[in-house]
């Protein structure tokens, strides 16, 4: 009998608390992201130093009061370079996530909803995307498109399509079998109405935390491509490029520490927020 599978405990307890409680770590994460966004939008407000022009007499200085993160081999202020590099790093990650979410969700939605040969074809397509190791795939796409940050973003986005497609398809299949979908059908809803009004909103709920998580992954991957020199050429100061610059000066490790710390903090914040969004409602 089906009765007891959903049997009793707490079925009748009304859910209290409409207000969302934000745990402290999530608040800190959100705050940090706000700072990063501000850096991207108006870097000039945060630093007086020019990110591109160096003072040769001040080269390779350790972190201090005038140069918070120190200076590089050309005497440029690292803090300023990090701040001015944010816009490129953040916007490229955004582009990448947008490609992944839009294309991936569409593929997953259609595959899960239409079933049959459409599903089979799309499933093989996704299998292929998954079969080529992500980073390698991104590398060959960038090399085909040309070494620019925007192309690195596109490559990262294409690689992410498979992830979103898989999750979306699984969610659509799950939601499609939900009782409320059948109920809506019995109330005279057509399949496209049901797709748009019931299936899509419910299935997207798990896409949002995944997109936040992917934002962090995209930052890492794009920085990795920049580290290999597949991003915008200097004097651009993408975070990954800054770490690569530091590689040549192991005796001045702050050149690595500063941009690396910013990358880690940003990705950590995104992971924390994603986890919080994924919590059971």
């Amino acid at each position, binding site marked *: 009998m089906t009765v007891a599978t959903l049997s009793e405990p707490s079925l009748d307890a009304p859910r209290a608390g409409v207000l969302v409680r934000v745990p402290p770590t999530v608040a800190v994460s959100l705050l940090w992201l706000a700072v990063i966004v501000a850096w991207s939008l108006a870097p000039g407000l945060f630093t007086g130093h020019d990110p591109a022009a160096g003072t040769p007499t001040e080269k390779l200085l350790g972190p201090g009061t005038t140069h918070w993160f120190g200076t590089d081999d050309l005497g440029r202020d690292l803090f300023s370079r990090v701040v001015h590099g944010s816009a490129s790093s953040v916007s490229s990650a955004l582009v990448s996530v947008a490609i992944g979410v839009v294309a991936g969700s569409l593929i997953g939605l259609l595959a899960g909803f239409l079933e049959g040969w459409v599903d089979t074809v799309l499933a093989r397509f996704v299998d292929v995307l998954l079969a080529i190791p992500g980073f390698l795939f991104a590398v060959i796409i960038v090399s085909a498109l040309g070494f620019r940050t925007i192309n690195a973003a596109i490559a990262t986005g294409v690689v992410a399509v498979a992830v979103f497609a898989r999750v979306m398809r699984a969610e659509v299949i799950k939601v499609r079998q939900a009782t409320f979908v059948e109920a809506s059908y*019995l109330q005279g809803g*057509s399949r496209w109405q049901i797709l748009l009004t019931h299936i899509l909103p419910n299935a997207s709920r798990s896409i949002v935390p995944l997109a936040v998580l992917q934002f962090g992954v995209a930052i890492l991957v794009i920085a990795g491509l920049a580290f290999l020199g597949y991003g915008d050429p200097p004097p651009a100061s993408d975070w990954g490029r800054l770490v690569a610059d530091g590689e040549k000066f192991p005796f001045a490790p702050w050149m690595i520490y500063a941009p690396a710390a910013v990358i880690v903090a940003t990705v950590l914040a995104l992971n924390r927020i994603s986890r919080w969004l994924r919590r059971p409602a």
Partner: protein
Amino acid sequence: MTNSPHALPAPLLAAESLSVSYGRTQVVTDVSFALAEGSSLALIGESGSGKSTIARSVLRLLPRDLGRASGSVRLSGREILDLPERRFRPLRGRELGFIPQDPTSSLNQVRTVGSQALEATRLLDGERGRAERREIVLDTLARVGLDDPRRVFDSYPHQLSGGMLQRVLIGLTIIPEPRLIIADEPTSALDVTIQKRILDLLSGLREERGIGLLLITHDLAIAADRTEEIVVLKDGTVQEAGPTRQVFAAPASDYARKLHGDVPALNPDRYATLRDREIPAPASPKIEFRDVGKTFSVEGQELRAVADASFTVAPGTTHALVGESGSGKTTAVRLLLGLEQPTTGEVLVDGETISHRTHADLRDVRRHLQLVYQNPFTSLDATWRIRHIVREPLDRYRISSRRERDERVREALTAVGLDEGLLDRRPTNLSGGQRQRVAIARSLVLRPDVIVLDEPTSALDVSVQADILDVLLGLQAELGLTYVFVSHDLAIVRQIAHTVTVMNRGRIVEQGPVGRVLSRPFTDYTRELVAAVPGQELAGHADRVAERTA
């Protein structure tokens, strides 16, 4: 509240001022009860009453880092609540046996039943070889009524049915010969006839070995049949306690009285006036099944879900479709709604066939044919507001103006007894009973003639169930609705239905007026089903039902 008069010097189990909290919320407050050696006591209550929590704190199995119990629990006079874990652990299994609620999730899925049973034999005193322990297990499996102990021994849990698994679990519990068994809703996941067999087995074992029983249940009728004493709980506090017969004969507290009035088995005539109202003689049946058969092919094998089913339902009446799992009642409902197509025969509503027609073609029929699902937690889209949920049918059928639709939504909510303030809430912020009312309201807005009710109360507490039944019967009397009521619970059927069809393994076993079928069943199966309804011992109303002509 005082404990039982039988609890002399050192009761087997005695709880005094037991309080339990999860984090900062206190869920059990100041509960006391006592259970004499070899006797039985029921902790009964609805969800949130704290009854399972009490069971778990006696076994000290509250979630780690979260649950905290205070007060006193004595086992044969020995305080067990503050024993160090190292010294308490040997008592588990050996002194205190535990039978869980859902047998399908209570065994490790990736290990065989036998390997888990051998674990239980380790608790026996004395050194024993593997062969000897295996013999003990096989004997025990045979004792709990499993026909082929060897096969069960070598099976994985997912290869056995729920009833078999519950027998296994009972077997594992009695192997170390405990003095007290704590059974947490041991049968609520099982079919009625199996429920009766499991409870009979448990009672038999108790008598045979003099084991005490602490039975946790939401089902007053089971408590009435199976225990000597009873403790009624609500919101973690004791409402009433005493010998079972006394509590049933003359409930002293308001809550126990209300509960008593809400249990269908104890109140077969609760809705007699609404049910037995004047119904105009029908010109033609509202619903008709004509030799309907439905075969599914699974794995190349033909599976007959429904075979040669014929019955009719008169307008304005309630027809109950009764059966256990696998009886075909769900398939019958899906055929009635046009969600499945019959392999043979046809289904008619208002003389019009609904079989083999397209979705678009059925729109007009479905408008007058509504369904209320069993589980209001899955049948409402959690991302929608109540206003939109109830309005969805009106929107889909583009009925009148927007303003008028909102008006009709409000009317429907009022009809099911819900406050307008809920309009902008989402289902997650409602209780189970409120959600089911929303689902009923949704089925009403189109002003249908027929509502199919698929176990509409089985996911809900008894008192909530009674409220929902009140609403349904009131609406029927007022609007002349025809109900098809799918249920496994004969007690409810007796309360509200006019005619009944009993199904078993896809076939109709028996049908006719409720009074006749339930009091003078023609077939063995129906007889077994009727006998399995708990609470008859104390109800004593069975005769009256027979007198009522349907």
